[in-house]
């Protein structure tokens, strides 16, 4: 990887983020009675997208919002403008990543979905999000935030609405813990602006439609990435697929579930494990043979165990060394183009690990890249192991103005032997001493909750 390219400045990114920050400032104080400074921020946002197809709609929305008269549709266009700006930042970043990795990216050729009718459930979410924008982050209180609860409870049981439900659930929990907003001494304005605009976008009919095809071939896992908030978790396996009669490309396979906030650590794997046999394959270091597995144009396998068969052993480090350099990258769906979505599998070796206080960097060919060990879930892959490693499979990510590598697995040397440690080692079931203890504690917690649910829930 050409790490030197990752620290070079990118044209236009600063300007795009400044326009985003202008909207975020307006959202901080709220749009109920906007002040001149907020009006200027809204105008700056409208100006930044004026040449795009959104231009006139956003200009109108910014005018209405500046007058304190914005309706739900207007908030939707402000959110769309913010997302479009991040789309442009995303594209600039992935172009740079592709240069650094030398990989080719496929073109997005799927036509836009036909927007249907918005459901009432989704419109209730939109209405809450509009109220939040009027109050602003500094104006949130318990009454306002708890208004999301019935909406979330109604959304959660429907897997097709899970994207919106899981997002709102995590977002509302953060807002609830931050009430009253007037007492906050600092505000995660970028983050909450992201979550707010994404949630609004997901209320647009057709926004989450993803046409699928099917694929057959050999799946070679690279590692597992975990995402979690208090009441949801998702495991995402990154892998290379060698399709029958085709050239290899990068894919992901995901499994997610809502969970009570007291299910954490090993308990999360226990919740997810029964629903995707791939997690077992990953822990055992095996390949998987796929037959007619559904897949989206973004390279997301829509996993169904009946289309998968456990295959031969496949060392992720061999995959990373031999197959990964030949793999191409599927495109990202237009609405999902956001820097946070960038998680590009990379293989690194021959770096010099440097630890200064709590910041770890890998110097690759003399260029330092930050290492995000905080993103590694509990398991045998510890920050110390990463710092002492010789080779690393990771995900290249970007946030707060810099690229970082999130380790998925490392090779270290112990007693003159090479040892591999994986972030997802516990995914299919822990066998090490610490892991077995964690599994036991998690089983106990889940047993209590199931027993209580069985006894009390259906009365």
């Amino acid at each position, binding site marked *: 990887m050409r790490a030197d390219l990752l620290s070079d400045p990118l044209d236009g990114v600063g300007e795009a983020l400044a326009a985003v920050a202008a909207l975020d400032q307006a959202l901080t104080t709220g749009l109920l009675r906007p002040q001149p400074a907020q009006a200027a921020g809204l105008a700056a946002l409208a100006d930044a997208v004026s040449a795009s197809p959104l231009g006139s709609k956003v200009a109108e929305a910014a005018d209405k919002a500046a007058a304190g008269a914005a309706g739900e549709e207007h908030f939707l266009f402000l959110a769309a403008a913010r997302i479009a700006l991040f789309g442009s930042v995303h594209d600039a970043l992935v172009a740079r990543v592709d240069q650094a990795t030398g990989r080719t990216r496929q073109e997005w050729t799927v036509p836009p979905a036909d927007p249907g009718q918005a459901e009432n459930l989704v419109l209730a979410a939109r209405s809450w999000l509009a109220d939040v924008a009027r109050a602003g982050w500094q104006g949130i209180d318990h009454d306002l935030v708890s208004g999301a609860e019935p909406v979330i409870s109604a959304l959660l049981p429907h897997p097709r609405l899970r994207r919106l439900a899981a997002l709102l659930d995590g977002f509302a929990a953060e807002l609830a813990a931050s009430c009253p907003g007037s007492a906050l001494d600092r505000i995660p*304005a970028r983050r909450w602006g992201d979550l707010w605009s994404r949630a609004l976008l997901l209320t647009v009919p057709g926004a989450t439609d993803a046409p699928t095809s099917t694929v057959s071939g050999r799946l070679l896992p690279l590692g597992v990435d975990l995402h979690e908030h208090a009441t949801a978790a998702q495991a995402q396996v990154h892998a290379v697929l060698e399709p029958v009669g085709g050239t290899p490309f990068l894919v992901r396979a*995901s499994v997610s579930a809502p969970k009570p906030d007291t299910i954490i650590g*090993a308990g999360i794997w226990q919740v997810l494990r029964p629903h995707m046999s791939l997690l077992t394959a990953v822990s055992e270091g095996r390949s998987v043979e796929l037959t007619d597995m559904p897949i989206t144009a973004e390279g997301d396998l829509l996993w169904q165990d009946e289309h998968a068969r456990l295959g031969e052993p496949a060392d992720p480090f061999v995959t990373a060394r031999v197959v990964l350099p030949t793999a191409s990258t599927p495109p990202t769906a237009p609405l999902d183009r956001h820097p946070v*979505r960038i998680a590009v599998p990379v293989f690194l070796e021959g770096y010099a690990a440097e630890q200064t206080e709590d910041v770890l960097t890998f110097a690759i060919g003399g260029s330092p890249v930050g290492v995000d060990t905080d993103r590694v879930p509990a398991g045998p892959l510890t920050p110390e192991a990463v710092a002492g490693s010789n080779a690393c499979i990771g995900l290249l990510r970007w946030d707060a103005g810099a690229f970082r590598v999130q380790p998925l697995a490392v090779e270290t040397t112990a007693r003159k032997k090479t040892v591999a440690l994986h972030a997802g080692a516990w995914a299919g079931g822990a066998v090490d001493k610490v892991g077995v203890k964690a599994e036991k504690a998690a089983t*106990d917690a*889940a047993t209590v909750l199931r027993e209580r649910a069985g006894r009390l829930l259906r009365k």
Partner: protein
Amino acid sequence: MSDWESASTARVLPPARPRKLAKVPFVELADGRLQGVVSSGSDIERVYVSSIAAGSYEFACSTNNNRPCGGARGSFCNHIHALITESVLQYGVDRVARYLRVEGTDLDAPALHSLMLASRPSQADSAAAAQVFSRFLRHLAYVELPPTTSPLPELQWFPPTRSVV
């Protein structure tokens, strides 16, 4: 703007901490109260719904069938004691103390307990119990919600933590 303020994945909530759930299956800081559910030691069908209000420390404890708890007459009962202890395990003492507005240095669960008692809090009626119990049921319902293998790109905003159960 600081890195935290300009980070999409800025951490806002500290990770939950592991605790055993057998005695107190549910604890939360919500609705201006520390509230939760404590399983009865003698009757498997019975749970106690307990709460302490932030600021006033007004407390309440009753069963899920709305019978008052015999121990909570004029003072904190054992259920409220267990609620405080478990909330400190789950959220950390600082977050619990800040939410309840208890001030002090070197706080721990027993100190929280005695500082709140020292202000002679009054006993609330059991009006909140039904709401707390329904929030507990909502919490339990998460165990039974169906998983999905369709990707949730929005969870990219929620990176994991290193906490171990």
